[in-house]
């Protein structure tokens, strides 16, 4: 998918009403793209994330991604903002690359901040169980809790591609420990 494919859609269309849009305080709403075959099937193909003033950051290249997760920090150079870039073995919500299977997620459980490092199972598209209390997350469905205790899905890093380059452009969900993703904790 190229950058043109991932242009923001009309925020008042689809599942977000104009009223809800304004309730979000004027935040822009971007669409996370879904695989083309789903669109052909006429199914819901967009999911929305609040996005304001996130940096656009080069985090990797499609040609470099193998089976091992690639660590990167985003949106800040701060320990809580540690993420992994992953290639799954199936298409995923928000996935980029030729098979829509390249995704990125924050590395800390949104229950109590347990480290998920080493628990990203790309073969089955599951993160976890978190070593603290055994929460698991679905990496193909926007980090949704599969089983467990987190009161928010695992924050997904919104990706775009430009040729071979992969850019992080936003975060879907609040990073554990933060009160606002857009406030630089290192400042």
């Amino acid at each position: 998918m190229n950058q043109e494919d991932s242009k923001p859609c009309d925020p008042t269309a689809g599942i977000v009403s104009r009223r809800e849009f304004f309730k979000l305080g004027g935040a822009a709403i971007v669409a996370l793209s879904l695989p083309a075959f789903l669109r052909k099937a006429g199914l819901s193909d967009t999911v929305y994330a609040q996005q304001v003033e996130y940096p656009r950051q080069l985090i990797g290249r499609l040609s470099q991604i193998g089976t091992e997760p690639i660590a990167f920090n985003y949106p800040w150079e701060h320990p809580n903002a540690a993420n992994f870039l992953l290639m799954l073995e199936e298409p995923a919500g928000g996935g980029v690359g030729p098979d829509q299977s390249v995704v990125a997620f924050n590395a800390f459980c949104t229950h109590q901040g347990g480290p998920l490092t080493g628990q990203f199972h790309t073969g089955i598209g599951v993160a976890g169980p978190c070593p603290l209390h055994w929460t698991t997350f679905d990496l193909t469905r926007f980090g949704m809790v599969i089983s467990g205790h987190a009161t928010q899905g695992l924050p997904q890093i919104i990706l775009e591609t430009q040729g071979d380059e992969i850019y992080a452009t936003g975060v879907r969900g609040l990073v554990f420990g933060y009160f606002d993703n857009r406030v630089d904790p290192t400042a």
Partner: protein
Amino acid sequence: MSEKYIPQDNVPLPPANAKVHTTACDYCIVGCGYKVYTWPVGESGGPSENQNALGSAFPGNMLGTWISPNQHNVVSVDGQPHHVVVLPDFQSQVVNKVGNHSIRGGTLALKCYNPDTPTRDRLLHPQIRVNGRLEQVDWDTALEVMAAVSKHVLEKYGEAAWAMKTYSYEFFENTYAITKLAFSSIVTPAFAVHDKPSMGSDTGGVSDAGVITFSASYQDWADADVLFISGTDPFETKTIVFTSWIMGGPKLIMVLPRRTAGVAYAEKNGGLFLQVIPGTDNLLHLAISRIILENGWEDREFIDKWVASNWEIEMGMGRGTRNTPWQWRTTWGQFGTDFEGYKEWLLSHEPATLENAARVTGVPAEKIMQAAEMITGAGGERPKASFGFEKGNYWSNNYSNTASYAAMGFLCGAGNRPGRVISRLGGHQRGWMGAASYPRDKSPEKLPGRRKVEMDLDRWVANGNARFVWAIGTTWTAAMAASQELERSFRALTVENPHQIRSIDKDSVIQTLIDRVDSGGMVVVNSDIYPVEPINTEFADIVLPAAAWGEHDATRCNGERRLRLYSKFYDAPGEARPDWWAISRFAQKMGFEGYDWEEDNDVFEEAARFSRGGVLDYFVLVWHAKQLGMKGHELLRTLGTQGIQTPIRWVDGEMVGTQRLHDSTLELGSPEGPTVHSKWLTHFKSHSGKALMLKSPWELFSDFYERVTPDPAKGEFWVTTGRINEIWQSAFDDIRKPYILNRWPETWVEIHPQDAAPLGIESGDMVRMWSDDILVQTGGRVRVKGYSFTDLVAAGSIQTGRGEAIAVAIVSDDVRPGLLFTNFLHPSSPANSLVHRVPDPVSNVHRYKLGKAQIEKIGESPFKTAFEEMTFKPRTVSG
């Protein structure tokens, strides 16, 4: 009411001057401590420690303070919009230590009424159904109509025609008021609580054995070496007991028909999974006990000291009129016996042989043997074994499963020592405070001999004997067995009756409802917080809006009897009032005295006297509050989220909680002040203070079991139901929490791949489950012959009905082949319609876990291919 979930990337922080309230979770038995922060919209705190009410710096670290966006809401406080944040108490030293929480309690803020969210359909005003539509009326009108019709019913048809169906848990203040009205003022036997058709014991076999079902403390689960968990996965349903107390503690034996996350944890940590066929637990327990006895692995020292002899059971200890269930069941030798009698019976009870038990239960013989070894030490060093059980155990072969479970525990020396307990793990919290006893003598139901039993209210209604019913905070029909058949009964007696309200004029309403009653129909009142289907939306003539958690001060205990104040922190919506208030104003209109309560604390203090000497005794607290010149609620408020474990005792000038019951290590001096020293504080709850072994013959149940066992040749499956971690109860809040609804937009059914493939069923398909062979017990009230299923059939008391439910399929090898596992009470899928309404003959408890159905694909859900909602990934990934 669905509203799409949009994840937020920020959350407001409570300013340093935000108001802080303490409370406990509204949901499961564990009762985690929570703190609530409220502050006016327009203000906000900052990320430094001194800039926010949490006293925490942001960003926080692992296990530190954090607010997720789903822990925030906007509510009305004194009429003004306020932010509210509901957080687990990070300072808690009890229950949910270090801010631990489940996904259910963690999202409590989302349950608060906010008309900008899906909670906007809260019931705000009293209503009367006129021309089929619920129309707003004032409280006075609604209560006057109720009183006029009630007086007519009581005068003309007697008190048994005036019925109540209510929650048993929604705070002491409410249940005290409810039982004062029903059992003390009206004195009706037509009464049942939300999860059973009668007022009999939930767990008769364990209770008769002398074990109080919430005797343990959470510390006991942690202190055990091995924990035998039957019929529940605490990870899923009482999460913090599992994640804060059990994980890292005992080795687990888990008995379930379905592999769950907790089972995956157990297996990874040296535990054992016994994947049982539903309904066969009695034989599993008996086979394990038989192995123990054959090998001499029983705890002789404990048995010699603590198990009742025949003399202690019979001679002066259990005698009396024998018309109470406890008395007739434990004496006469039918069930109760001494150790030698139990051993002799069990070793000669053919169905309990290892070979037969393995065949019937579906659990391999070597695993049954391994379980016996694990809980006894197999002749080596004896481990501290504890036994925790729940509805998978007691909602099938109720009496026998629980009786055999207790007996197995006693053989292992469990029941009265730290880390060696027999206890329920629990469902909802303990909010029942009875003002008077159920009037069993008035019940029309009776077993052979002088054996009065509590009435089956559903059968009473279906037979047209109830003329006025008041349902408080329960779905009633959906929660009971053969639910669609019960709904047909309700419909015939209410909306299909010719006497329907056509005018909102009060006198006309009263006359119409009296005409309804006199024509053999029934009048339905429903108190609730949401328009529950169908009791509220279809059947109710009068609807009363209730105030709920956080909307008034209230009290109850958790699964280790820990009493806390659940503080009011925001305005009840509209004209919603606590149920105790509705009860008291109705009672006043009836002319009953003693209902002049003005505030929550008035009821709490009055009820204290009725708690005295019981398991939930808090009389000492109210007594001490009076000494201090305080209100009882205010003294309890000072104890915050820690509260105090009941029964509360007065020792050396201080209130002292009770960690566990039947505690043989507890040293009691002389009772001080108003303290009551009940025998069961240090002994078992029997006349002798000793434990009773109860026989549990398979034949009591086998005729029914054979009749309801699905026939694979007809395409029939077991349908067994249970809960899932992310949903509380009937999902009444969860379907209004966009975050949770995103995870579970529909109800679901798990099916094994080898069953799904031939039917062409894949994960994400919509399926229909149905049966035309749902048994319904009908007919007479007094049985003069036996009470077995065979006797009921011979008496013509068993009819058949039908049931149907629709769900999204999840194909998973975590369930047993031949078994469908579905949510027990989802509003969109009445799974209880597939459950037979033939209660346990000994205890009148339903056998919810033993439904059956055929299944077929009817289409595809959008979730099958779209990524936005629901997930079909396995719940048992263990890393």
